[in-house]
């Protein structure tokens, strides 16, 4: 299929999410759409898939102008989409998910599952995508679920496949497998639109790269372009992709976890016997695919989730099952995973958010009344020091950009007298410039001789920051390794295929 987008424009109120975007995808081509979070990639894809209607511009399929009332129509016209958040019903079987909306039926409107299963077997054989049609989706690993999404699109006879940030939840090996599938689909004549913000992947797979920034196409590039060229096009200025670090000189153990068991909301042991040490002057990065217990581990450390068994020690104090206030008083700084839910009160001002975990403390309060002058002075100081872009300290934090919201949290945590910093996915959803900034702040904190635990599912971030890397899989530490190891061996640890405890 030859797809042409001509001058697509989509506005949300005063925000122009897509501004006159034009892209052409040739049959059998892997066309990569590169842009930062918030650049308008997902909006564009939702327009193309019939989930949103463009305010202006047109979509041409094989030269014919087309409009889609809903995504069912887009599917019927041969467009398939693999969403970033999988659009699969977790309690349904593979077969039920694949046929949903396009069911073959028998008498009395009954779904013909026999035919459905046969069709799936045929398509999975044709494209070499092996899946058990009777398996329940939620029992499948993420990589296989993604395969089901691809299979779903193909069995509806998709000629153009949109892959929206498909690698975000995959291990490096699963990413390799996905790329293999993409190549073979392209070889079979399918067009592929690959949306990502990861430079390495683009270079590895794309035939053509279109870069968008702030809703506009800013240019195209060849896959042979260097990563820093691509990054500067994406960001609009030169960026430093590596963080400068002082040589590693670890001190005493500051933080210690022993045999920790923590349950998730469903009562399952999400953290199942984890032991870790973090020393002064060290960043320990905790790598792993999302959902392997990292979230629960961090919540347990921060006092936000009960510990079933095991101990957490910070600077000699036992903080197991202590309240968040006690944990903070013991010298823990916490940059939470979901900054808008757990890091900030969105309806409060920047100044108030900057004292959110010390509001009762002098000089911000005295005899039960707040000292607003001190709060304000603190805000002015931190806004300057951490380069927070805000109109005034009295601005609501919800009106700041994601990067600046994160800077508010980083400023608040790092300006306290910390013994230990826990940062969970500290740069998720941030633009490259903010990522650079947050990384520098954390490395500075470490260079001053402090300890930090950084939880990240982005391997680039792990390698940029870590002095040691621990990998978490299925609630356990599958290995603790030196950052000099290859991405492949980290990938194997992330997938749980090997476990090792290589002490440094």
């Amino acid at each position: 299929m030859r797809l042409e987008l001509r001058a697509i424009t989509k506005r949300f109120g005063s925000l122009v999410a897509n501004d006159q975007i034009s892209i052409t995808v040739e049959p059998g081509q892997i066309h990569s759409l590169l842009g930062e979070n918030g650049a308008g990639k997902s909006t564009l894809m939702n327009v193309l898939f019939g989930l949103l209607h463009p305010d202006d511009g047109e979509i041409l399929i094989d030269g014919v102008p087309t409009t889609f009332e809903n995504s069912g129509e887009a599917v019927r016209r041969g467009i398939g989409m693999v969403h970033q958040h999988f659009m699969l019903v977790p309690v349904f079987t593979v077969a039920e998910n694949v046929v949903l909306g396009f069911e073959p039926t028998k008498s009395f409107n009954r779904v013909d599952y026999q035919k459905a299963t046969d069709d799936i077997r045929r398509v999975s054989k044709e494209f070499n995508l092996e899946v058990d049609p009777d398996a329940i989706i939620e029992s499948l690993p993420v990589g296989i679920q993604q395969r089901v999404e691809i299979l779903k699109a193909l069995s509806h006879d998709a000629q153009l496949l949109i892959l929206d940030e498909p690698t975000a939840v995959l291990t490096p090996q699963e990413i390799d497998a996905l790329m293999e599938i993409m190549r073979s689909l392209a070889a079979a004549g399918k067009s592929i639109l690959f949306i990502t913000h990861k430079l390495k992947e683009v270079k590895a797979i794309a035939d053509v790269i279109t870069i968008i920034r702030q809703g506009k196409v800013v240019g195209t590039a060849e896959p042979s372009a260097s990563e820093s060229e691509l990054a500067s096009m994406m960001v609009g200025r030169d960026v430093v992709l590596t963080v400068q670090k002082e040589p590693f000189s670890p001190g005493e153990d500051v933080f210690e976890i022993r045999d920790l068991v923590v349950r998730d909301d469903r009562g399952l042991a999400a953290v199942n016997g984890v032991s870790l040490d973090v020393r002064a002057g060290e960043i320990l990065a905790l790598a792993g695919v999302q959902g392997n217990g990292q979230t629960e581990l961090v919540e347990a450390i921060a006092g936000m989730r009960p510990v079933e068994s095991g101990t957490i020690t910070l600077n000699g104090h036992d903080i197991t099952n202590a309240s968040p206030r006690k944990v903070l008083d013991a010298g823990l700084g916490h940059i939470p995973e979901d900054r808008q839910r757990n890091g900030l009160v969105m309806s409060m001002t920047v100044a108030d958010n900057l004292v959110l975990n010390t509001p009762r403390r002098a000089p911000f309060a005295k005899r039960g009344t707040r000292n607003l002058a001190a709060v304000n002075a603190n805000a002015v100081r931190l806004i300057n020091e951490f380069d927070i872009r805000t109109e005034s300290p009295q601005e609501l934090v919800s009106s700041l950009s994601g990067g600046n919201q994160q800077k508010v949290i980083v400023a608040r945590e790092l300006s306290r007298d910390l013994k230990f910093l826990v940062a969970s996915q500290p740069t998720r959803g941030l633009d490259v410039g903010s990522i650079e900034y947050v990384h520098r702040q954390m490395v500075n904190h470490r260079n001053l001789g402090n300890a930090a635990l950084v939880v990240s599912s982005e391997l680039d971030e792990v390698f940029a920051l870590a002095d040691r890397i621990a990998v978490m899989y299925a609630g356990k530490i599958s290995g603790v390794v030196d950052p000099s190891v290859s991405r492949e061996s980290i990938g194997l640890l992330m997938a749980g295929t090997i476990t090792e405890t290589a002490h440094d």
Partner: protein
Amino acid sequence: MSIAPAPAPTQVATFRPSGRTRIISIIMIVIGLLTALVFGLGSAASAHSSLTFTPINLANAPWHLGRLTLLTRWTNVILGLITVALGAEVFLRQPRRGVMVRFGVVAVLFLLALLLWASRAPGPSQVGYVNVTAVLIGSSEVAMVLIFGALSGLMCERSGVVNIAIEGQYIGGAFFGSVIASTTHDFFLAAIAGMVAGALLGLLLAFLSLRYLVDQIIVGVVIVTMISYLSSYLNLQVLTPYPQYNTGNLAPNLPIPLLSKIPIIGPVFFNQSAFFYLMLVLVGVISFALFKTRYGLHVRAVGEHPHAAATVGINVVRVRYINVVLGGAIAGIGGVAFMASQGQFQPGYTSGLGYIALAAMIFGRWRPSGAVAASVIFGLSVYLSENLQAYSIPISTEILGMFPYIITIVVVAGLIGRVRAPGADGIPYRHD
């Protein structure tokens, strides 16, 4: 752009039942001990309980079964010990499945022991026997009403909308059903009237929660409250001065030839009103529609993951409208059925059956067959709470009236977090 959480499949293997299973097992053991001590050893050693089986109305019983006489004390001690054993088994083995099924068995055993104890002779009761067939017939009427309600809740919740307004739809159906039945003397028209009343209330719920995304629980409660006052007002203004619009609406029994002559089973299952048979058909139709048809697959997809349904072109809001309106209509018929089993409309006489129906749906794990089983248990318990006074037992009517609700609390509390509601149940759908 956040990343979808990806549960690691191996975590399932490390599952260990939570304290909740243990609490349920302890409740079971306590019930068992209570049964053995109070109902068993609390009865005089010489006391007997008699069970009779011949229905009071002999028209359909060309058979006669003798009475079964049991020693109250030892029968109840045995029932109590069985309950304790079931509780102990759950406590020790902590099975992952079937805990609530066992709890259902325990509830039935407890009710049976209570009945034997209440009817013991010599004892305080004037009635020295339990007519098993009469108890089953009485319970089946309540169960029928509950099943209509549970099916209504199920239709709505499978599509992702919580229908807590079942009680209101009962009341609406009962009111209009009574007026139409009194004026036309035609129960078919009465059922249609009740259906329309229930469907309109369903439409109101759907409109507010789907168009304006109002909290579904609040809308539901508001509808119930509004309808109960409205029906009281209309009752006072219309039905009290003109009693001819609200009288003599007892639905006739339609015995099925031959089958109705089977001992016990016949009078309970095959000598019922048309509403009862309609309920049986409905259970089958809804089971088939939800789990075999294309329509059902769409409904369940919308209830579990509306965005996934939307991406394949299913109109989420339309599916929800259809199901909520259908659910309302079903509850409306339930209201007519209730009215037809009582003979007329009275304000407030549904007394919370709609909420028990919702609990039966949860107990039945959002499945029609489960809802039927749960409704039978709740039906038995509601019937007994209303009829045990006849045995002049030393428990006040009001306390007995609490009985079904206590079971409801235990069941629902025991089930939350244990059975899984449809993924998007009660969550408004925003198109984005």
